[in-house]
């Protein structure tokens, strides 16, 4: 005997949301809640429960970007509201999209690995492909590669950003700690996503690596804070490009450290060593490159960097 036939489980809420969209979209005038409850399939039960259902449905459709017009039916009696979806505000219109352009958009959509922008771009592409334009495979003759790593929870960060809502999360750095942050900006820097925001417990703007965030949640209401200007965020990791660079003087073994010599001023020091002067954006960057080259390089100046390296290496030998 074969498997018994399984009747599909009805998804009443999805059906109701689609039916409501179609009814509001079809109406040329504002329709009342009573008309909706009477005519749209899926609304049943006591009036109070149908009203709650309708309020949730409106919020759900709005979360999908569907604009529902709400206005009083009579300007003299503002207590009775009517609803509709304007076809002009619902439907997508993009002037003169060619198949070649659609092909380029398809390549652009594939340049993401993170779920937020990758899924967003794919959804956009599907809508654009529903406009009746054939896609032609774009031959850009250029290798286009994804620019970022995938990280979870960018959706939550995006929602908090666009709604100006407070975020809470666990952050793993030197210490693992709980943070409460006003999110200001998402930044993609060298393949990794960062969140720039105000650490509410310290009232300072900080940069958080998204990969080190876990248990991310939104707290409180929308518009909980004002976003500062980009100028005010200049003290963050990505904003301080105008800051003074650090100049380092090095003794570098001849014929060695070819990559370190790029962009540096080089003079002979003696028959074994060159004197190299190089500017770095950050001290961390200088330290990392100098340590990478091991015993082929020695810091002459600044003295603070020199002594930092000595104590670091001594700790490794001890």
């Amino acid at each position: 005997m074969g498997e018994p036939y399984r009747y599909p489980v009805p998804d009443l809420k999805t059906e109701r949301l689609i039916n409501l969209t179609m009814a509001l979209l079809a109406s040329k005038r504002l329709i009342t809640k009573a008309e909706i409850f009477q005519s749209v399939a899926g609304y049943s039960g006591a009036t109070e429960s149908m009203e709650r259902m309708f309020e949730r449905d409106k919020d759900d459709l709005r979360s999908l970007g569907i604009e529902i017009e709400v206005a009083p039916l009579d300007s003299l009696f503002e207590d009775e509201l009517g609803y509709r979806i304007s076809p002009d505000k619902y439907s997508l219109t993009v002037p003169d999209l060619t198949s070649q352009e659609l092909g380029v958009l398809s390549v652009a959509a594939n340049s993401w690995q993170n779920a937020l922008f990758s899924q967003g771009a794919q959804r956009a592409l599907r809508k654009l492909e529903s406009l009746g334009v054939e896609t032609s495979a774009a031959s850009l003759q250029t290798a286009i590669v994804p620019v970022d790593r995938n990280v979870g929870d960018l959706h939550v960060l995006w929602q908090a950003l666009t709604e100006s809502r407070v975020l809470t999360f666990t952050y793993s750095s030197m210490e693992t700690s709980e943070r409460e942050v006003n999110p200001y900006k998402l930044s993609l820097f060298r393949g990794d996503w960062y969140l720039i925001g105000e650490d509410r417990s310290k009232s300072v703007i900080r940069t958080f690596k998204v990969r080190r965030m876990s248990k991310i949640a939104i707290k409180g209401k929308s518009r909980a804070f004002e976003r500062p200007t980009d100028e005010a965020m200049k003290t963050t990791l990505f904003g301080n490009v105008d800051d003074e660079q650090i100049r380092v003087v090095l003794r570098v073994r001849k014929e060695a450290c070819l990559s370190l010599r790029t962009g540096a001023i080089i003079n002979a020091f003696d028959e074994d060593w060159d004197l190299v002067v190089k500017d770095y954006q950050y001290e961390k960057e200088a330290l990392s490159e100098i340590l990478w080259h091991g015993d082929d390089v020695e810091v002459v100046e600044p003295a603070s960097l020199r002594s930092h390296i000595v104590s670091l290496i001594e700790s490794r030998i001890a």
Partner: protein
Amino acid sequence: MSLSAIERTSKALDLIPYIVEHPAISIEELAEIFSVPSAEMVELLNIVFMCGLPGYSHLELIDISTEDGFVSVIDPQNLDRPRKLTQVEIISIVLGLQNLKSQGVKPAVMVIIEDLEKKMLALLGDIETLSLVDSSQTVEQSPWKPLIDDCLNESATMEIDYVGLASEKLTHRLIAPKKLYINSGHYYLRAFCSTAQSERNFRLDRIQSATKSSQVLLPSVSAVADVDQEVQILIPKGALQFIELHNEIVETSQELGDQLHLTLSISNTAWLLRTLSAIDGSVSILSPENLSRDFQLLNQRVLSNYGQI
């Protein structure tokens, strides 16, 4: 995992106009395009089949035909047009176009991209939202990228002068490019290398010169694959970036007080010594013994430079 009612609604509203424009499309193809399993797509189509305009007679319901696994919409009712793009969808596309520009496209393609950018931004309305994301520092530019693009398109070989990542020595190599990728903001070229007789990764900012070559490059029969070995190390707990950047070589990771004990699987130990040296903090190699000794000797030589030994 099955979708929520909102996700299903979103997909269903996009599905109808898509099928209208792509009649007789297979359920499998639809499932792939809408990123759902085939069974979920069948359920979605069943749901849509039950929906329609008030009245809900056969004349007012959405009518779909699914013959032999191929789907067409006979009557979409008033869902024949795609929904307008949401804010995040437009931003995903606009930033995606900027990704293309940053990767060096031909002038003719640049014109198309800039036109598209204008069209998409006109749909966005509130440009302020775009300032919530900064993706301007995604990848460094490379003068070699156009040449590599050509070689990849034509399956041509290249001759390069390359400063080795671990050796810091300049070598001349004949390579057959395979693919380009980005890691930590740097372009890398995966290519078969005649010198190593195996595939290698070349960081573009370490290429000193490059030309297209007419030589054919065939792998030698005697080519030997690189052998990984197990290496145990201790790094500071704060050096999380080491794991984030080199996740593919980290086999296990365990917290030990304020340090992390890692087991690595790696063939290029010269690269590992340099990478560990570059960490700002206390680092030690626990095993194998010869590598641990090499690291100690390297550190002693550095200290000797500073007159400390």
